[in-house]
């Protein structure tokens, strides 16, 4: 079941388009903002609201890198692994993050605090290496800086 707040936000997005399907990505993102990810059940509710079948909606949802169809931790770390960040040493950042958190890419810490995911170029290549934690961009990463950044996310 979608909450009233979710429904209201989805309706607002739908008002920007001549048909409901066009709002489907924004609708999924509303759910994700509220719940961290999009479960099968919530996907079904969104599909019903938009007059789509669940399969249709899932074929769109799974096309995108950032519609999360599996549960994630309280904070999601997206580490840029594209070319400029790679040249500037993102692999060292990956190793450092993996060792600090004790998890591999794609995993969530046992306490549910962090999920670690790769992401493509964040459009901040002049400040490589970069990562995003939730919605925040962190630039010019060093091993020391990565450590400090994580502390901001309890």
């Amino acid at each position, binding site marked *: 079941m979608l909450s009233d707040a979710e429904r209201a936000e989805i309706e607002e997005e739908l008002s920007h388009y001549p048909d409901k399907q066009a709002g489907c*990505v924004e609708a999924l993102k509303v759910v994700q903002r509220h719940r961290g990810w999009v479960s099968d059940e919530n996907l079904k509710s969104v599909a019903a609201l938009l007059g789509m079948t669940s399969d249709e909606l899932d074929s769109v949802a799974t096309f*995108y890198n950032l519609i999360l169809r599996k549960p994630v931790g309280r904070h999601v770390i997206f580490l840029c692994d594209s070319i*400029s960040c790679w040249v500037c040493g993102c692999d060292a950042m990956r190793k450092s993050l993996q060792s600090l958190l004790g998890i591999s890419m794609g995993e969530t810490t046992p306490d549910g605090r962090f999920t670690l995911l790769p992401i493509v*170029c964040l459009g901040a290549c*002049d400040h490589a290496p970069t990562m995003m934690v939730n919605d925040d961009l962190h630039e010019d990463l060093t091993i020391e800086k990565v450590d400090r950044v994580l502390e901001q996310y309890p």
Partner: protein
Amino acid sequence: MDRPLTRNIKPKAEPLWLAEYEKAGGYESVRKALRTMAPQEVQKLVTESTLRGRGGAGFPTGKKWSFVPMGPDTPRPKYLVVNADEMEPGTFKDRLLLEGDPHQMIESMIVSAYAIQADVGYIFLRMEYGIAAARLRKAIKEARAKGYLGRNLLGSDFSFEIYLHSSAGRYICGEETALLNALEGKRAIPRAKPPFPQVVGLWGKPTIVQNVETLCNVPHIITHGVEWYRRLSRGKDGGTKIYGVSGNVKRPGAWELPMGTSIREILEEHAGGMRDGFAFRGLLPGGASTAMLVEEHLDLPMDFESIAQGGSRMGTGTMIVLDDQTCPVGFAQNLEHFFAQESCGWCTPCWEGLSWTERILQSLEEGQGRMEELDVLTMHTKLLAPGRTFCALAPGAMDPLQSLLKYCRVDFERHIHEKRCPWRDGHNGADGARTWPVSSSMIVPTR
């Protein structure tokens, strides 16, 4: 004024909001166009300005607009879509414009929409650009309150509305026909052309898709004229260009410079040359999908024709530098990993070919490559050449690979002869090669 696009942009500062923006001459082009010019006259100025698309392909903007059906009997609504997806690795110029001067984006859309008589505009923005999203929303709201958007703009009979669409991360959405499918809420697979979007686009209606930077030129052309605009450039194509440099240079960054500034000037004067301890080997001039250029090309002007003569494309104009401490095979693997992952899967040569390419590069990096595999890589650069796949993603993936095979052949061969990556223990060697999902043996206990 020699930096029209970035004149209002100050690093780390808030952008100009409506009152200040107007005081700085903002929305002048809208007033001028709506009050004194017919839509076709605006189109004519844009054609004469020699503005070419800044999204990668360099198509003349005025010419693109000329295909849009005009007149009372044309299908409505017509659409103007801003391509703000900016997911080409190594590209960070549109972000600067969107975050730095959101009202300029809105003004650009209004005056361009007037030229083609569009009714609705969408900004197709990548999800990660959250700051840009918030600033654009605020700018749209301010503009609407002031009568720059909505019904009968400034008392004219032209009406226009803008909506922001934030995507969810997939490189192919930046391809203009895939972008239309994405906006319609479908899987973002490219569409066959013809029909071209200018005639049959969003929901089957005439649609112009234009890059952020391209559109941001338009108000200045209208306000200050064609003569002035063409003089900004050092070459044949008018205006300025936002160039960028990333990699191991002293001052990575982006700068608005005259179109046709030489690569050397951008690299040495603006980016400060290579960082100490790093030597230059080559660069991709305009994002991940452009062929590498080397030392002998450094004096080429960065414009569409000169870079094409050097065997590459200017692309987005943001360069990625390859240095001597970085393994060229690993560099290629990183690029092909991206393209293989982002292939939309619609046509077999692309999704099948790109993942094969990536696997070969990975085995080379791990010291398990064979000589014949270099031929397989070369074969792919031909199999995935322009015209052989449904869209330009696959040929774009082959451009850097083909050039790396050409200019760094010995490095590829060394991987095979030595059965290892010669950079393995260095700054960027095989150890860093992409192996996600990582094997459990790599898990290190928490502190």
